[in-house]
């Protein structure tokens, strides 16, 4: 038998109105985005959101060698979401698992509506998302960073997709769930939108929400997206402006 004494810093901080980490219900975690951080990739971006550290590289549009994936009238947008072995408590075994396969798929669907894929028939645009450190909300952070990396690569786009989650924790509908809120909370709902039109390109939900809570969470998430969108623009501007 092995007994583990943990040193859980967050466990004492839970209070009434404020959230465990002291944020208001509609407050994002601190965010930082930087574009153009890698040499070899055609485009790249680095994002920190709370304890999340995400690095994204984009290659392409480039030739697609795998015939059965080729589209005669447009490019395919392939995404690979991957967690570093050291990114989580305990060690994540290298290689794809079912969770990362699903996230890769929905990430590709979330980003595709913004990209002028029809300009590059028979090609591929490859988006590699590496989670260097994970603290809740990595799929949204990955999509947000991927958009900046696509812009950095000069891929022609209709809009800069942005992603954020809302959900329910401690009985309260809140924005941008932390790892603890995600684990212990009642629901998590990641979305992605095209900020110009407000259209939704990603929507998942996990947990228990009434219709009213859902609408509240959706509005909260859309607002969160808009704030993050500003950070994306700053990152792109400070690289090219």
């Amino acid at each position, binding site marked *: 038998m092995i007994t583990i004494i943990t040193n859980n810093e967050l466990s004492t901080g839970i209070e009434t109105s404020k959230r465990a980490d002291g944020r208001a219900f509609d407050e994002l975690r601190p965010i930082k985005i930087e574009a153009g951080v890698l040499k070899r990739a055609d485009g790249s971006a680095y994002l920190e959101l709370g304890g999340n550290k995400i690095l994204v590289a984009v290659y392409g549009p480039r030739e697609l060698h795998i015939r059965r994936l080729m589209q005669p009238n447009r490019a395919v947008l392939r995404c690979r979401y991957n967690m570093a072995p050291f990114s989580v408590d305990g060690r994540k075994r290298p290689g794809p698992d079912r969770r990362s396969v699903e996230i890769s798929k929905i990430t590709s669907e979330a980003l595709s509506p913004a990209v002028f894929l029809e300009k590059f028939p028979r090609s591929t645009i490859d988006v590699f998302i590496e989670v260097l450190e994970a603290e809740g909300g990595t799929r949204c952070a990955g999509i947000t960073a991927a958009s900046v990396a696509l812009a950095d690569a000069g891929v022609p786009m209709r809009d800069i997709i942005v992603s954020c989650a809302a959900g329910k924790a401690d009985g309260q509908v809140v924005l941008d769930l932390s790892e603890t809120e995600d684990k212990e909370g009642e629901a998590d709902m990641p979305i992605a939108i095209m900020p110009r039109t407000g259209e939704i390109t990603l929507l998942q939900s*996990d947990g228990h929400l009434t219709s009213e809570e859902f609408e509240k969470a959706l509005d909260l998430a859309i607002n969160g997206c808009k704030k993050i969108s500003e950070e994306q623009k700053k990152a792109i501007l400070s690289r090219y402006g």
Partner: protein
Amino acid sequence: MVTIIPEIIRESITNLVKNGERSDGRAFYEYRGISLETGVIEKAEGSARVKIGNTQIMIGTKPQIGEPFPDTPNVGVLMTNSELLPMAAPDFEPGPPDERSVELSRVTDRCIREAGVVDLDKLVIIEGEKVWMIFLDLHVLDYDGNLIDAAVLGSIAALINTKIPETRIEDGEIIVDHEKMISLPVKEKALMTTFAKIGGELIVDPSLEEEQIMDARISIGIREDGSICAMQKGGANPLTKEEVIMAISKSQEITKELREHLPKN
């Protein structure tokens, strides 16, 4: 495999929808014929064969005694797995589950798990040491569109149909009594409905043809009390906020009707 849909078919289906019609004559919020049989596999502790139109899935459950996950020592385990068999469509290939198959099993799993369909607390044999693990295997036999709704409907039916042996502890030993089979504790019957967006309209239960040309897809999981337990958007085009809200509201109605197909537990 890339399936190329001729532009003329896309236009024809889209134009029909714009005129308020569907190519198979259904109304926008009408399902195809549903058939649901349970107990069809005697060697499975629970089973169901579900058909929605020509889409057909065989579902079986298998209980095993195992160890609980370290972070949830006092609940049983439910494992959902799906195979898009190469028999089910000309473009499905043998091999490890691809991303469509993974999405199907994960969405089904989330709907069941988050709605609290199975009372996992009652699957503990010895706290922190031994629990029942229920394997829920989805075998997709014929693919004619809308796998998600069929998967969830059939899974709930198979779980209701499942009987596991009674266990007791005697002298520190687990007795697994196959002579006393008890029903799996199913306490909630959440179901999912899927909508396709075509020509700016939402239609329920898309057929294969409709799926192939749809702009986007949204699946909503609804519990018996009308609350939402799961959502999954798919497809390479966006949805508006209004469309999502409308889909939820329609789902709340439609799942009530769908639930009539389930066996009593």
